[in-house]
């Protein structure tokens, strides 16, 4: 176990820079998830920590030591790849013991470590099989087993669940989390799936276009996104955004949408300027039903059993609401809704930054 510190790391391919000075502190034993859309640089950053990509500038420290110029084998890390990368000509046992055999560990030690890891991952009966004889979930477990036997300072996971079907993904998610609670090894995990990030991480690093947009605990990111990107990326269904400009109602600050709908806001007046363009963000579950607020028109209703998702239009703005109760609605129907100003997020349209 060791802390990992990434300081002002950049990655350039020729003249194109794909990671623009990223800094992340990962505490000893922490489970950190790098999340962001495809091409945001999260996998490249992980590969730089692993030593599979050169670092153009900046430092990566593992256990306090700069590892920039160390090859992967001298970094004391283990990595689980998106497509498993199991050695097809080796049995499960040989796959798991490969790293220990390279280190020329005694046979008895190799055997006990492999069997211990196999028992954690429920692979004992599969040790003599070849990767081609395993299912996707079993292969994924072997890939994790290969990492566990190393007993490394840091675990690196590169989108390990994206090739599994939905049900298995949920199951493996829980297994990886349980494994981390058991081993308490520092873990860096890359995914594009924000649900994985929210459910598994101690700390989430949201990346976009090669920069870090926000670092924080899952609920911190959910409750107080720093900017429009994080607000839109974290949460499913995504946060609703309504554009408008600053106005005042009875002396109280408000936002008037381009369709003339007035939405009260609870942001200190000092932060707002008259005529300033704003984006009003409200999470689907923070829309409540009731008269006295603006009226929306229902377009689509999606009952999932446990909740009802209602797609509607407020003026020309599309909105999604999630309601726990089963409500009988029909497309085209008028729906009185309330947007709680206390739960709303207000962003400056130009900078995209949160106002309060």
């Amino acid at each position, binding site marked *: 176990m060791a802390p990992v510190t990434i300081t002002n790391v950049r990655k350039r391919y020729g003249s194109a820079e794909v990671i623009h000075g990223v800094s992340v502190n990962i505490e000893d034993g922490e489970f950190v998830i790098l999340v962001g859309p495809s091409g945001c640089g999260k996998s490249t950053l992980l590969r730089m920590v692993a030593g*599979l990509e050169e670092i153009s500038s900046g430092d990566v420290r593992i256990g306090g030591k700069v590892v920039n110029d160390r090859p992967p084998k001298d970094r004391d890390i283990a990595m689980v790849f998106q497509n498993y*990368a199991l050695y097809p000509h080796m049995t499960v046992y040989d796959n798991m013991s*490969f790293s220990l055999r*390279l280190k020329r560990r005694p046979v008895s030690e190799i055997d006990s470590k492999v069997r211990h890891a196999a028992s954690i991952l429920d692979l004992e009966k599969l040790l003599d099989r070849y*990767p081609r004889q395993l299912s996707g979930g079993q292969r994924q477990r072997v890939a994790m087993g290969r990492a566990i036997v190393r007993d490394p300072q840091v675990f690196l996971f590169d989108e390990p669940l994206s090739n599994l079907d939905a049900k298995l993904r949920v199951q493996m998610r829980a297994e990886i989390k349980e494994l981390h609670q058991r081993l308490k090894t520092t873990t860096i995990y890359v995914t594009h799936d924000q649900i994985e990030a929210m459910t598994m991480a101690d700390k989430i690093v949201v990346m976009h276009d090669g920069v870090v947009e926000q670092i924080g605990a899952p609920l911190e990111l959910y409750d107080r996104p720093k900017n429009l990107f994080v607000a839109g990326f974290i949460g499913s269904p995504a946060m609703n955004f309504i554009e408008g400009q600053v106005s005042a109602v009875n002396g109280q600050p408000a936002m008037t949408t381009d369709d003339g709908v007035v939405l009260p806001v609870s942001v200190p007046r000092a932060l707002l300027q008259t005529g300033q363009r704003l984006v009003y963000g409200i999470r689907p579950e923070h829309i409540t039903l009731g008269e006295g607020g603006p009226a929306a028109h229902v377009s689509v209703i999606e009952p999932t059993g446990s909740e009802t998702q209602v797609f509607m239009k407020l003026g020309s703005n599309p909105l999604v609401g999630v309601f726990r109760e089963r409500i009988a609605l029909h497309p085209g129907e008028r729906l009185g809704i309330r947007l709680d100003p206390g739960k709303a997020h207000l962003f400056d349209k130009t900078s995209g930054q949160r106002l309060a």
Partner: protein
Amino acid sequence: MRHFRRKASGPLVAIVFWTVASLITLFPVYWMFAVSAKSRVQLFGSPSFLISSFFTENYLSTLSDPAFQRYMTNSIVIATSNALLVTALALLATYALSRYKLPGKENLFFWTITNRMAPPAVFLLPLFLLYTQVFVVADVKLFDTKIGLILLYCVFNLPFAIWTLRGVIDGIPKELDEAAFVDGANTWQVLTQVILPLAKPGLAVTGILTWVFAWNEYLFAATLTSVNARTITTGLAEFVTVTGTNWGRMAATAMLTLVPALLVLGLAQRHIVAGLTFGAVKE
């Protein structure tokens, strides 16, 4: 019903087709065997494709002939060394071409094949001069040496081997190298413990084809050797003399040269297993 009939007749047509094709292909070999099994009198007295009695003398005299033994040994040494050297060098070259970012590597890859673009006969005279006049250190020449032929065949076979193996190495997922690097392997260990076992089918094919090339090569072997490094192909030609051709001995020698080739093919074939990388990475 019609569909059913077509399905049932499919294998029958295939069996007939391949049987006829095999007979046509194997007939010259049988003919050669028939010639080798007959004495001169049997051969010219009453010509027939059938073998009435086996005339062993052709085989016995060939096997006990020191010239035949030397030619055979030379051919085996030259073909096998050439196949091993070419396959090893091609593996190293294609691994580098496949995995490293080398400036102009695609050009390099393409230009390796250019020495196969001219007819080999074009190189005959320059090579003869090089081997007899230029590559001479003290009394040591490349002319009429096994190493001379081995090196020459390498020059001709390497481009072909690199082109064959490139696809094989490119087909091995790069993540396997990376996984091995993270597992603590160095480049040599990745090459020998991960790439080599997975490239076996491709290496076997490359090995067989280069071996067969060297085994069958006549033009350079006839020109660049005189006594010591003569190969079996040149030896076969020696049965054609101004006083006549010893057809029986020639056919027996040719039959015997088939044996090592069949052995090599049989040994290498065991490693040609398709789909060895299945299950390595999620496709």
